[in-house]
């Protein structure tokens, strides 16, 4: 076994030495034989002749010895490669097309793999990442739950399968002021053991002492993120020891975190404060450190030799007793897993799977196309193969030659694809993964990794084998014929017809799907019953600076009034919960309804002119006005879906609805207006006036303008700032940008599948053109005869175009069926009704048809240009 390996290796690596030894050995034998004959009385010349005759051909013996040593496999491979390289250089056009096509197709594979790696597979970038676990509460829903500080402390103190358990709230919006500069940035509230547990070292100063995280609200210390330190303090070392204000509370800076901290979320952390200061970082609970305030995520380090499963079992056993009886929606279980990837929901993995399927489909189309071109090319190399066969090459050797050449092309294409994918990933990252739906910068780590390299290599090799399969078999079959056998071109065209039809079908399906997605990405901005264009947003958070509700209401009213006065502003409104067009949930019922009939509805608190601002049609009644205050009668507006559930018998306006326990009179009914995809059902919505919620403090302002909303943003902030400079203004972005951030999957899918569709269409056209051009060039003689016999040039063109177009249209018909299935698969990404989908199918079929027409016209015209005399003189 090992001697065998050693031999083959030595033969490979020390090729020349081995060859020389072999020559020496054989020469020694001959010389000995000659000496023997000379000793027996022959003349030296006779002796030499005799010995040589006996020995046989030295070359043959040498070759047989090489075979015996078992190196011929590698030898022939190298020979194939050299030969292949020469052949590919000789037909540069084909080589370029092949390499470019494979590069474009493998780039798609590499891009998807990169997305998958970053979103789903990658370990945290931490020392010894394999022993890190994230611990989260489960709530009987896919979303994973955060826990309260007392629950965290109980896990931390009781768990033995982890050597440490840290708590973190890594998406804390902190309003930070240093001197005169103030801004809302993303921060983190972390336990003192957070940094040591993740193996981080400060670049300056220190991290938190354990003692600084023991007494609530006592130790006001902060650690700066590296980039924050560089931009806000110009990387000045004297920052350590100086002061900064977080949400109105002064802190002392004690250290600076390293440039590449362990990123637990895509939101980079600018400022860290200890968990005992959670009340500064989180203002939505009455007491942020109480057991009913869930804010913290947990990350642990497995104790030596312990597994994730052991930790999971232990955490389930030691979880707080009251979790066991909690209803769905509250913390009622615990999950321990290795943190992998940055994806926080299951929507992104589903998207990546869809894109992966598209990329593989694209690769197959690419192979079908190249297979067609290559067999055309190898058909024209028939003579060359025939010569090689007559020189003694076996049919398998010829097939191997074809496969080696293809692999050479495929690997070159794969390398190109890898490079190209970095460009694509860079673009995707900039377009979709650099800002969240509230305008915060995001950082995703898309750096190259082993899975990307392996996937690309595998794709390239598979492509090489796949697209050489047909030509290799043809080569075997052909070379076993007599070299000068008659050429059959019609048979070849028939074979490539199938491949072309498949390509056309896939192209139509991809074009239709891409168009549907692109239209959805646009629809989601100017959807049914709302229009996001021309709306600017701003988030005002007086809660961060301890406003009381009364003061906040006065403040918000003044803001609305001031903004209304800005020229070019058409209307101003605000919401209290969640985002514009979004919101929270509430319990809704009718007076006298039994408890079981109570509904959970979508809910928001909105200002006057809200529906005018987002352009949602008011069907009946009125919008809220400035007069709907706490002193006025409680009112509500409901959407159509809720109205039909409340009062199926017709009279809806004036009905009384109980929202979160307060009876309210319905004064208006609006059309259903929510960003919901085709797989989501219409939701019931209830709206109450912002002014009628006694507890409302923070708001999101929406401003409709006649001009460019992005240009208005700075002016809006300038107007609001003087009212109270201490109130943090955040998230100044436009509504389209926000919706785009919320609907990232549809936009990523539209772009990616659009790319695949364009490539598939191009490939179909190239493939068709190549096949027809080849058929025409092979039939020059026949065409010449037909022309000489009086066939009309017009009819000739028509017959060739008909041939090409027939294939494409047959494929397109299948493609439409495929497209219908495909649109079902991506339905969760589609917005708007399916009623007009057939338009997209028809348009896709037409587009591919036109491409097919163009591709067949060129060879047809060349055929029509054939001069009968010239054609007949050929061959």
């Amino acid at each position, binding site marked *: 076994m090992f001697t*065998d390996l050693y031999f083959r290796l030595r033969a490979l690596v020390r090729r020349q030495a081995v060859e020389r030894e072999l020559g*020496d*050995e054989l020469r*020694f*034998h001959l010389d*000995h034989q000659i000496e023997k004959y000379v000793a027996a009385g022959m003349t030296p010349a006779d002796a030499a002749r005799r010995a040589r005759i006996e020995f*046989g051909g030295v070359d043959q*013996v040498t070759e047989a010895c090489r075979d015996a040593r078992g190196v011929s496999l590698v030898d022939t491979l190298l020979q194939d490669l050299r030969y292949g390289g020469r052949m590919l250089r000789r037909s540069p056009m084909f080589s370029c097309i092949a390499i470019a096509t494979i590069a474009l197709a493998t780039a798609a594979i590499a891009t998807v793999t990169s997305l998958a790696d970053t979103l789903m597979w990658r370990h945290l970038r931490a020392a010894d990442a394999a022993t890190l676990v994230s611990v989260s509460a489960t709530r009987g829903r896919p979303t994973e739950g955060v826990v309260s500080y007392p629950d965290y402390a109980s896990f931390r103190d009781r768990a033995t399968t982890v050597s440490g358990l840290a708590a973190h709230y890594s998406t804390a919006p902190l309003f930070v002021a240093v001197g005169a500069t103030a801004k809302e940035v993303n921060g983190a509230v972390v336990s003192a053991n957070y940094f040591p547990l993740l193996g981080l070292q400060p670049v300056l100063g220190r991290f938190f002492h354990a003692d600084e995280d023991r007494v609530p609200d006592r130790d006001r210390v902060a650690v700066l993120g590296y980039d924050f330190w560089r931009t806000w303090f110009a990387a000045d070392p004297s920052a350590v020891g100086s002061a900064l204000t977080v949400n109105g509370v002064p802190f002392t800076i004690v250290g600076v975190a390293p440039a590449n901290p362990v990123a637990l979320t895509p939101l980079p952390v600018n400022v860290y404060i200890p968990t005992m200061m959670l009340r500064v970082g989180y203002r939505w609970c009455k007491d942020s450190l109480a057991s009913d305030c869930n804010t913290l995520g947990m990350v642990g380090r497995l104790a030596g030799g312990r597994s994730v499963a052991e930790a999971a079992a232990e955490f389930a056993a030691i979880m707080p007793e009251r979790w066991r009886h909690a209803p769905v929606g509250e913390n009622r279980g615990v999950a321990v897993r290795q943190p992998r990837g940055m994806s926080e929901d299951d929507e992104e993995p589903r998207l990546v799977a869809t894109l992966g399927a598209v990329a593989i489909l694209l690769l197959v189309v690419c192979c079908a196309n190249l297979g067609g071109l290559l067999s055309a090319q190898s058909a024209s190399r028939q003579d060359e193969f025939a010569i090689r066969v007559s020189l003694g090459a076996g049919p398998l050797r010829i097939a191997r030659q074809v496969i080696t050449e293809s692999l050479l092309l495929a690997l070159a294409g794969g390398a190109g694809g890898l490079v190209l994918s970095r460009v694509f990933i860079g673009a995707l990252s900039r377009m979709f993964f650099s800002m969240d739906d509230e305008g915060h910068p995001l950082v995703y780590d898309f750096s190259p990794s082993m899975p990307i390299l392996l996937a690309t290599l595998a794709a390239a090799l598979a492509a090489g084998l796949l697209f050489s399969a047909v030509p290799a078999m043809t080569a075997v079959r052909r070379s076993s014929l007599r070299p000068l056998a008659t050429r059959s071109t019609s048979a070849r065209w028939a074979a490539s017809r199938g491949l072309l039809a498949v390509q056309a079908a896939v192209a139509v399906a991809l074009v239709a799907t891409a168009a549907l997605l692109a239209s959805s990405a646009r629809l989601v901005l100017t959807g049914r019953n709302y229009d996001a264009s021309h709306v600017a947003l701003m988030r005002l958070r007086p809660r961060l600076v301890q406003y009381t509700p009364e003061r906040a209401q006065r403040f918000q009213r003044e803001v609305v009034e001031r903004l209304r006065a800005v020229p070019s502003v058409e209307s101003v409104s605000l919401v209290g919960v969640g985002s514009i067009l979004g919101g929270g949930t509430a319990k809704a019922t009718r007076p006298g309804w039994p408890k079981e009939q109570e509904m959970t509805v979508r809910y928001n608190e909105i200002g006057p002119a809200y529906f005018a601002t987002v352009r949602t049609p008011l069907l009946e009644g009125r919008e809220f006005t400035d007069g709907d205050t706490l002193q006025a009668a409680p009112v509500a507006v409901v959407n159509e879906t809720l109205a039909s559930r409340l009062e199926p018998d017709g009279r809806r306006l004036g009905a009384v609805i109980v929202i979160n326990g307060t009876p309210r009179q319905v004064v208006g009914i609006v059309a259903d207006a929510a960003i919901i995809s085709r797989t989501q059902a219409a939701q019931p919505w209830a709206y109450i006036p912002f002014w009628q919620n006694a507890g409302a403090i923070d708001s999101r302002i929406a401003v409709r303008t006649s001009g460019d909303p992005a240009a208005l943003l700075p002016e809006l902030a300038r107007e609001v700032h003087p009212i109270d400079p201490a109130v943090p203004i955040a998230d100044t972005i436009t509504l389209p940008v926000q919706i785009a951030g919320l609907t990232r999957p549809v936009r990523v899918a539209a772009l990616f599948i659009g790319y695949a569709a364009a490539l598939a269409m191009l490939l179909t056209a190239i493939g068709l053109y190549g096949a027809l051009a080849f058929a025409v060039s092979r039939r020059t003689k026949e065409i010449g005869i037909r022309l000489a016999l009086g066939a009309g040039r017009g009819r000739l063109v028509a017959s060739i175009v008909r041939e090409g177009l027939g294939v494409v249209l047959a494929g397109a018909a299948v493609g439409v069926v495929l497209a219908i299935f495909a649109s079902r698969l991506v339905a969760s990404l589609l917005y708007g009704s399916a009623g007009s989908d057939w338009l997209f199918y028809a348009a896709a079929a037409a587009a591919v048809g036109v491409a097919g027409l163009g591709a067949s016209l060129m060879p047809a015209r060349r055929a029509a240009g054939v001069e009968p005399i010239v054609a007949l003189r050929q061959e």
Partner: protein
Amino acid sequence: MDLPQGTLDLLILKAIALERQHGWAISERIEQISNNALKVNQGSLYPALHRLERRGWIKADWDVSDNNRRAKYYQLTKKGQKQLEEQTGAWRSLSAAINLLLDHS
């Protein structure tokens, strides 16, 4: 007389069983011992030697020969020794059986 199929390996192993030999000496030895009845074709001898070496039954060293030239000497390995015994046994029983068959009349 040409060698029956598959017996060359056995003869080579036997020829170098006592002491190491170079290729020419192996073919000479086979011819001498068989009283020139068996003739080894060089075209099969050397490939066979290389094959046996690859299998690890024999190993080769370069050394200086009797006539002061560099020659490649082959000698039996442990594995080759075992093979020689096995194949000798197999050949004996085969030829005995064939003799039995031929003598029977």
